[in-house]
């Protein structure tokens, strides 16, 4: 008898693993599956814990919007692509997704047009230049959730000690780097470069945009192998070869560079606006200032804007499409309500994507204003183009191959041929 009981118990355990009960929802309720990316240590607490003045986003939303339940997951950036791809492959895409890319999902007919669910008043609140980044075939497929802008940060004390000015051109950058190397005899790296799989595409943007090149030409067609691009990346590679940079750009990520900067071991680094907070969290006391990213002689300096998005997936099996769209709209309206949104953006030190948040943010931290100006002049990655994933990984591989001794022009030619075939 005992044996049979043990058997039944083990069988039920085995089956139980495969069939955990779903959380109960009342009849008539709409449940939205939401995936939010983890931007920092506070994201999870804000959405699901007690980080929103003792409560959290989900509880507050559900209290204010009866009839709509949120099944919200906060997923790390490392896992989110795997998670979303797996869910799509299993016909279980989330209703609302917060991520950076959108073109593949839009091109494959998986997304709802923003006009189907976004209330007009809210739509008018987004910065138009941000909305433009999410348009394919005259349709807006995603809305921006937040942004960050990159600028050159430099260690003021090191510059004063060596007696040099902040470089604005590539030639000056080389001179200043040489002066820092000479003064500190190699103890301080003048310049930081990240060509890792994390952000090698940002390095590509910093140098090529500063040389009149870029990912696309003036017609918006891919032009990764332009002579300007090859010259720009070669300039960066020469900085590495001449000992002006961190020694291993293929494996040292931006966070490694920021750590070095916080430790006073790196004089200049291109970083997002959150760098001062990051350095303070690391216990660093660096006297830092910002400047434009140096460009080649006669070429305009350009900052890099990074923007993430919120998008809604189609669910053709949803019984009431209109009610579902309305629920998604309510989610967005609640999220971007300044009462909630300002806390969210400032908590992680990002820049806002809607006008209504600007005033409150500048009031709380006047340094935001300067960054909003930087953001206004930013260029963005061409994420609306279907081949962007391929190009992003392709330019990183080209940089890394060139770091390992390959020819950058040949690498970029091969990439251009692959993406335009």
């Amino acid at each position, binding site marked *: 008898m005992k044996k049979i009981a043990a*058997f039944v118990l083990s069988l039920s355990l085995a089956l139980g693993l495969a069939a955990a009960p779903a959380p109960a929802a009342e009849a008539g309720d709409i449940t939205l599956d939401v995936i939010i990316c983890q931007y920092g240590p506070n994201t999870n607490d804000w959405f699901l814990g007690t980080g929103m003045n003792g409560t959290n986003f989900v509880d507050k939303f559900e209290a204010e919007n009866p009839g709509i339940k949120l099944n919200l997951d906060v997923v790390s950036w490392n896992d989110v692509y795997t998670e979303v*791809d797996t869910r799509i492959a299993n016909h279980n895409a989330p209703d609302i997704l917060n991520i950076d890319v959108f073109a593949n999902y839009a091109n494959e007919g998986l997304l709802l047009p923003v006009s189907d669910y976004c209330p007009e008043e809210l739509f008018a609140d987004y910065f138009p230049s941000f909305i433009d980044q999410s348009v394919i075939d005259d349709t807006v497929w995603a809305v921006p959730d937040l942004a960050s802008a990159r600028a050159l940060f430099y260690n003021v004390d090191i510059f004063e000690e060596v007696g040099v000015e902040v470089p604005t051109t590539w030639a000056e950058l080389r001179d200043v780097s040489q002066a820092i190397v000479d003064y500190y005899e190699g103890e301080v790296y003048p310049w930081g470069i990240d060509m890792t799989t994390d952000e090698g595409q940002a390095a590509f943007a910093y140098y090529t945009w500063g040389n009149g090149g870029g990912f696309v030409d003036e017609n918006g067609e891919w032009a990764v192998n332009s002579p300007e691009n090859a010259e720009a990346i070669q300039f960066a590679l020469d900085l590495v070869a001449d000992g002006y940079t961190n020694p291993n750009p293929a494996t040292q990520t931006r966070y490694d560079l920021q750590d*070095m900067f916080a430790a006073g071991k790196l004089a200049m680094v291109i970083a997002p606006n959150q760098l001062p907070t990051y350095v303070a969290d690391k216990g660093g006391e660096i006297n830092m200032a910002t400047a434009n990213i140096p460009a080649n002689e006669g070429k305009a300096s350009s900052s890099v804007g990074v923007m993430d998005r919120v998008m809604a997936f189609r669910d053709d099996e949803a019984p009431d499409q209109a009610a579902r769209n309305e629920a998604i709209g309510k989610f967005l309206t609640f999220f971007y309500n300044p009462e909630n949104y300002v806390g969210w953006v400032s908590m992680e030190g990002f820049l806002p994507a809607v006008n209504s948040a600007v005033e409150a943010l500048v009031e709380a931290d006047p340094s935001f204003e300067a960054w909003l100006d930087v953001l206004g002049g930013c260029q963005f990655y061409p994420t609306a183009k279907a081949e962007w994933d391929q190009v992003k990984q392709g330019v990183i591989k080209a940089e890394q191959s060139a770091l390992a001794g390959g020819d950058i022009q040949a690498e970029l030619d091969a990439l251009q041929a692959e993406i335009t075939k």
Partner: protein
Amino acid sequence: MNPLPKRKPNWRPYLWLLPSILLISVFVIFPILIVFRLSFSEISKAGVVGGFIGFQNYIDAVNLPAFPTVMMNTFWWVLSVVGLSTLLGFIIALVLNQKFRGRKIARSILIFPWATSLVIQASVWNYIIKYEYGNLNSVLLNLGIIKEAINWRSSYQIEFVWECAVGIFVTIPFVAFCVLSGLQSIDESLYESATVDGAGFWDKLFNITVPLVRPALSVSTVLNIIYVFNSFPIVYTMTKGAPANKTDTMITYLYMLSFYDRKKGPANALSVIGFLILCLCAGIYMISVMRKEEAL
């Protein structure tokens, strides 16, 4: 003459096996079948599975520019990690089988690298060999052994050697404990009688120890080939295959291919190729071991 009593069919063993069979089916066999199916299907960048496309994914996979490098890396990775960890683990097991003070403590310490998560191990080694403020450089500088910090990761070839070294470090305990269990089952009297017959250390090692621990060593080697071939955390944590897949092994490469390059079809095909290679290696090894054991 009484006929043999008719035996009642005994269903119990099957019933007891059922939970395990169910679990293995759901978590092992079913995913393998899905990967096989996906490897012959067209898969979009977003992961939408399309129709049957024959061997196209396999053709695309082997024609990828990084494929030869990745296969060579995988070969050296498995050979060096399994080979050297087996050799070193064997030697350590011999030492730990001797009677000395603190033997229990030494055995406990040995298990640490194996009991710690591989991601933590790899991250710790990343810190140890860091150029800027790595522990290795600090220690060597403080001891006056080196005058200037050394860039321990100055080329991708050296980085790959570091990955193999960490792989060996974390695998040694597993081999040592497998061999140790084999050593402990050898009857002491065999060594005593060999000593009486005038056998030296090497005679005893090759004529008593090695043949008798061979079953334990066979098990550890087969399992190691599978573990090491499939090992993901060390390479991914230390280099992510950089620069340009030059330090990738097959497992990290197919992950990058699927989730970074979004070439999901070829990634599934590579997965199947890896599975078949492992089946082949394990099969050949097991057959050869079984033949030797039968011959003994």
